[in-house]
């Protein structure tokens, strides 16, 4: 009973917060004009945070609605927060053990939907879903099957070696590779500008993406990188960044699209002193049937808050725990 009262009160507070929330992502107040750097570029500098519970793809639970009413939004947010929170004890013992890594460690901002009450971060296509795959070549199908087998071994607690683990688990890349998608924590991005460059330092991991905005050409096609090769230009007050030249390692590109044909275009637009719209479009005719676009609001963090170093590989004890656990399970014939 007491829980129900608290939940109803929480819903009321949340609804009010949403009702009064401004500005609305995607509907930039036309009058806002961002400050300029001393050399005349729109000034995007500061530390921004992209945490949200709004899912990338629209779930089936919202009846196909793109935007919710205040009441629907409150329910949607409460349901998402319930699913996402780790401060729950209603699972079995194994779930409980996993939830020991609890909400103390997570970004609380990830429990709120976007202020504009959208049901998916994807805004195009209109159904809010990643478009279907085109038929893949036999080689790519085989590669995907091999990766799925490695992931299954890892999930079963039986990785053969570190190469059965994903690039984020191995601390090679995390959320530092575009597109930037919200995650459970470390959702900060610090932007620093100097003449001819916009630099984005994501909190996780520590790879600063230095984007030339001086009109220079891309790297030669053969020189590939984990984060690709980015070039920026100003379209009015929007920074438009095109990134190509991705490496072909497993997991470098979102959903293992084809590095030979994958292209991502990001648009950064400051829409208020403390709000920035991050929009990205990915296209890859050899992976998806059409291009798709997502819009994620970024909010400036409290200036008193610091962005911390995220050193991942340096203390990556987990790799050894996973591997020694797997070797012990093999000896005892046990599976997780």
């Amino acid at each position, binding site marked *: 009973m007491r829980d129900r009262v608290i939940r109803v009160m929480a819903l009321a507070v949340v609804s009010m917060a949403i009702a009064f929330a401004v500005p609305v992502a995607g509907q930039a107040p036309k009058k806002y004009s961002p400050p300029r750097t001393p050399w005349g570029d729109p000034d995007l*500098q500061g530390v921004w945070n992209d945490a949200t519970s709004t899912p990338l793809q629209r779930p089936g639970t919202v009846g196909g609605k793109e935007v919710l009413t205040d009441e629907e939004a409150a329910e949607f947010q409460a349901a998402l927060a319930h699913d996402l929170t780790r401060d729950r004890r209603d699972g079995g013992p194994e779930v409980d053990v996993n939830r020991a890594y609890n909400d103390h460690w997570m970004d609380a901002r990830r429990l709120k939907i976007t202020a504009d009450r959208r049901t998916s971060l994807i805004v195009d296509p209109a159904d809010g879903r990643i478009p279907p795959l085109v038929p893949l070549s036999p080689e790519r199908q085989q590669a995907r099957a091999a990766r799925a087998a490695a992931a299954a071994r890892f999930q079963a607690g039986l990785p*053969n*070696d570190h190469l059965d683990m994903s690039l984020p688990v191995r601390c090679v890349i995390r959320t530092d590779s575009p597109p930037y998608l919200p995650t459970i924590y470390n959702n900060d991005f610090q932007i620093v500008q*100097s003449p001819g460059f916009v630099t984005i330092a994501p909190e996780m991991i520590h790879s600063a993406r230095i984007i030339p905005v001086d009109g220079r050409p891309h790297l030669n096609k053969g020189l590939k990188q984990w984060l690709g090769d980015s070039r920026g230009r100003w379209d009015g007050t929007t920074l438009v960044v095109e990134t190509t030249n991705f490496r072909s390692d497993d997991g470098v590109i979102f959903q293992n699209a084809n590095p030979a044909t994958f292209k991502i275009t990001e648009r950064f637009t400051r829409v208020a002193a403390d709000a920035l719209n991050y929009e990205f479009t990915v296209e890859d005719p050899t992976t998806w049937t059409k291009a798709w676009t997502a819009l994620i609001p970024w909010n400036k963090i409290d200036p008193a808050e610091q962005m911390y170093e995220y050193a991942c*590989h340096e*203390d990556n*004890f987990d*790799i050894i725990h996973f591997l020694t656990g797997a070797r012990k399970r093999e000896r005892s014939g046990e599976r997780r």
Partner: protein
Amino acid sequence: MRDTTIAMRRQAFLSILVTLAVVTAAGQQRTAPAADAQFPAYRAPHRPDGHPDLSGIWQALVTANWDLQDHEAQSGDHPEVMGAYGAGPAGQSIVEGGEIPYRPEALAKKRDNFAKRMQVDVSDDKKWHALGDPELKCYLPGVPRATYMPFPFQIVQGSNSTILIAYEFASATRIVRMDWKQESPADAWMGWSRGRWEGETLVVDVSGQREETWFDRAGDYHTDKLHVVERYTPASPYHLMYEATIEDPNVFTRPWKIRFPLYRRMEANLQLLEFKCVPFTEELLYGAFRKPTAR
């Protein structure tokens, strides 16, 4: 006759110009940093905020990453595999006075570090960092080592009290917070950097560094009491003079200094590339834990 007069007048005019230039230069010299014997006095172009512009891609050419002090050319470990690839170059000390002022017991630890620089053992979390040069394991290099590794780095001088320094090695990044007075809130591999301008010099005070980083492959090390003060001074359009004062009472008997120039990388359209070295060290760190029948 007329030609001679014009020539004389021209000469007089030129000499006035030269005098003016000398006087101006002398005036600048008062505000410019003390000129190094290698470099005549130089004043870098200033940004609208009135401070020198240090932006660019820079690289050290010293061999201090092998050893801060005098060192001969040396074979690497496993010459039977690595041949001359594994060998290290000779170099002169970049330490003021030549020697690092170690406490006697700390010098023994440095020698032990060197002897075990290529050993690693990650089987026990508690001893995870006990052995091996962090560079070998692709760990963030810390300050000042990041500055003299054989990789370029880029200074992105923001207009909002933030200077970002991006290093090619391990894609390490530092944020220099200008006129920021706070204590380091938590230890970090690249530490916490507080910047300020002293005339033409960017001074960066670095503390809160993790104790596990080393200064070089020779095993030179520190503890979590490490305090580094760096000075970046433009010495020409193509050079910064770099100086760092290093203090750690647990290891050294007094503060000591290193000093060397940084060179501007001049290639057209040059950009920092990636040296994400984690995949290059995983086999060394984790290979022993592989399923015996796999791969």
